[in-house]
């Protein structure tokens, strides 16, 4: 399984006002809020944490089939590192986050080894859905690679997880 989430920083700035009363409390834990408030770049920290939660939630959604809106239940750890952890109900998700002046992009996986198996795809990839979960069909190898699509503002990222075993 793989999840990813991109935040277009320009869009985020105009679409959301995280300084609004009550906003942070609804989606960030006390520790996460402290990180935001202590940060030299609080805007970046807000969307850094948000993208980690979203990318990990996408895996949760694929595994359980449940759709929920509860960002508080996905708590970020080691958020200032390139590789971080998100925990939800005893499950750990590993996150890798790229931050630049244009966007923040997080990829979430269930095993650290999976970071070696990530491929970036384009729009022309052959994507099929099984029980609502998207896969990339790799005809040469007879395998289905889990895939995750994320878009926001000017950006879109499609990432897949390379499988070696035959899955169809």
């Amino acid at each position, binding site marked *: 399984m793989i999840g990813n989430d991109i935040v277009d920083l320009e869009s985020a700035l105009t*679409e*959301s006002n995280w300084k609004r009363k009550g906003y942070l409390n*609804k*989606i960030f834990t006390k520790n996460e809020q402290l990180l935001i408030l202590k940060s030299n770049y609080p805007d970046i920290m807000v969307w850094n944490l948000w993208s980690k939660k979203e990318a990990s939630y996408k895996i949760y959604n694929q595994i359980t089939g449940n*759709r*929920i*809106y*509860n960002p508080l239940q996905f708590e970020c750890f080691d958020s200032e590192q390139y590789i971080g952890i998100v925990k939800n109900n005893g499950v750990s998700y590993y996150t890798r986050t790229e931050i630049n002046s244009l966007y923040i992009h997080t990829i979430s996986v269930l095993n650290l080894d999976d970071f070696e198996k990530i491929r970036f795809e384009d729009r022309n990839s052959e994507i099929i859905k099984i029980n609502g979960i998207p896969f990339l069909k790799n005809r040469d190898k007879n395998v289905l690679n889990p895939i995750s699509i994320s878009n926001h503002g000017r950006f879109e990222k499609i990432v897949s997880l390379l499988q070696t075993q035959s899955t169809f």
Partner: protein
Amino acid sequence: MNKEETILKLKAIIKPFVNNEEAFENMSETTDFITDLNINSANIVDIILDVEEAFAITIDNQSMEKMLTINATLEVIETKLAENDRK
């Protein structure tokens, strides 16, 4: 407040965050904020905060968890309003 009034009030709250106008025009109770109206997930918080203000209710996390469709949101509003009345 009857259901029609609640729906009207809710529609006005949602409108600024909608990215699919056609789906908004054809809205039904099963309409989904994210998959139908293409609302950015970071803006669902705004909707929840606006709902709290407009209806003078407090939405706990357990209730918030379900608020991805019109129906679910209406149910949460009704339940919370009823709780307020009992206080």
